[in-house]
């Protein structure tokens, strides 16, 4: 296995490898698929609705905040959410409205509602005065809290102040849900005129990650001491080994607080946690016992 390196400039020029006929083949390796949304906003002049397609990312779960990145040539959306406090709905489209989602990207005159082109149904919101899209399984009612002019885009942070979900999706199994929505922007193919044909995708597989005893019972944020306690309680570590490991961790914390370090101790702890993370219990016991006896 080798590695191919590209500079940022080379990436933007969409590099093609010898033998590669599709000019987008390599480029989209470097553009990971991202979840798509429909954004409903209101024109501050005409009060008319606008619908545009884009992608979103998560900022925080509590409060629920999301990041939008709006291209400056998406004039309507960019204008409609410039002001802090502007309301908007981030609607998550499903696989059954791919065509209608695409219609929201069409370059149509300001004031013509893209939702009318796809004959989408407006869903009254409960918290803000911008409606959602009834055909979307999830509608997030948002308020703009931060806008930054960022190169070719505006970066917009919004706080979700209300939400609604299609009842069917609310009670569906996770795999069924993610097979339905949200759709993701995946790549562009090339049409006969050299233009772009956008492709969307949906999730199809759900994989369980290894968890406890690979990490703490509660997930990753409780610290290594809690992980050791969990391992002891579940019988993966004997009392002696758990005590030794906890002592090592305490010593390490004390050293850090004093601005000191001890490479030998660092290696001991690292190796012990590594063996736990890979569930090599016999080796872990040997390691702790051997290192403990060495003092």
């Amino acid at each position, binding site marked *: 296995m080798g590695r191919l390196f590209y500079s940022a400039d080379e990436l933007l020029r969409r590099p093609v490898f010898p033998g590669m006929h599709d000019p987008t083949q390599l480029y989209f*390796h470097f553009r990971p698929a991202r979840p798509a949304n429909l954004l409903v906003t209101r024109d501050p002049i005409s009060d008319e609705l606008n619908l545009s397609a884009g992608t979103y990312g998560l900022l925080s779960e509590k409060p629920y905040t999301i990041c939008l990145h709006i291209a400056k040539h998406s004039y309507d959306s960019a204008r409609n959410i410039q002001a802090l406090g502007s309301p908007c709905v981030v609607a998550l489209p499903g696989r059954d409205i791919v065509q209608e989602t695409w219609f929201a990207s069409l370059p*149509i005159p300001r*004031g013509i509602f893209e939702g009318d082109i796809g004959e989408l149904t407006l869903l009254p919101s409960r918290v803000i005065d911008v409606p959602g899209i009834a055909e979307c399984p999830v509608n997030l009612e948002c308020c703009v809290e931060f806008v930054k002019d960022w190169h070719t885009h505006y970066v917009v942070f919004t706080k979700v102040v209300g939400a609604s979900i299609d009842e069917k999706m609310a009670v569906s199994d996770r795999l069924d849900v993610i097979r339905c929505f949200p759709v993701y922007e995946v790549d562009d193919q090339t049409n006969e005129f050299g*233009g772009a044909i956008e492709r969307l995708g949906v999730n199809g597989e759900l994989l369980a990650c290894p968890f406890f005893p690979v990490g703490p019972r509660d997930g990753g944020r409780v610290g290594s001491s809690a992980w050791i306690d969990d391992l002891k309680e579940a019988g993966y570590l004997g009392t002696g080994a758990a005590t030794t490991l906890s002592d090592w961790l305490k010593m390490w914390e004390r050293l*850090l607080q004093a601005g000191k370090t001890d490479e030998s101790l660092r290696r001991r702890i690292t190796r012990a946690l590594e063996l736990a*993370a890979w569930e090599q219990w016999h080796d872990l016991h040997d390691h702790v016992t051997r290192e403990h006896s060495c003092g």
Partner: protein
Amino acid sequence: MARRFFTEANLEEMASTVGVMQPLMYTLRGPMPQAFLVIRTSSVSVGAPTAADPNVVVRTVTLTPLSWNPYTMAVTVSLEDEKVVCGLCAGTECVLGLPSRDLLRQLTICEQWLPKGISEVELARLKIYKSLYVGVPSIGECPVNFECIVDHLEEYHGHLVAFVRVVGASINDELIFLQRDEIVSRYPTNQADRVLCEDGTVRPRVSLLSDLMACPTFPVAPKQGWYATFDIWMRDLASEGYLNSDEHGQVARWSARWEEVFADTGAPERAQLRDKLTHLIRLIANRQWVQLHAFLENVR
């Protein structure tokens, strides 16, 4: 179609459990693309990267795209995650490695808040290699690594949002000829949810894309794609015979007139023009060419 509504307070409540949210919150959020964020907490490089470099920190994060030219992305970390926050300053370098389906254990390990100086690289048994454009190493097991500079930091609701600019990238050369549907079934993983098991343990789950669906193209869009303008789209339709020259002229006049009366929101002419343009575009979007010609003939 019945719907369930949530207030902001409802959403806060559903997100309140430490480490795991109520299942509905994950449904309201959707799976998020993941990455391994690699930073170096000390500016002192130790030469060739080694797994034992305690200054290298790896954290599982989710990715948000920001712009394509320059290519920038955002990652968000909790302000309580001191180990990472200490290493994220404007101007510092970092790497974003895209995880594949073969790295599930490593994703779990790198979610942990290990003590400072204890390297996730060693715990996760990651192989690292020297990056070309930044001093922070890349991850050998990741199909793609982005080499980045932190351009901007923003504190937001207890989190640090880092805007990073891609200055280079590398890819495993065995992957470059794979078809897209195979690529998306391998990487990147998406953080799907965390499940609270009956014994109180929290199980993270990731998802991968499978089905790809092509959006419509010309004539249901300009030839170039959505980047073009309405006028270009109409010209494209005329050049390929979907609109004759009279029809094209009529549409162009409507478009021009619409611009003139746009601000006169109470004018009856504006309302009529809006209806006409909406109907026209809907007929084109649905490829109803016979109806389109009849419509343009009737409203002439």
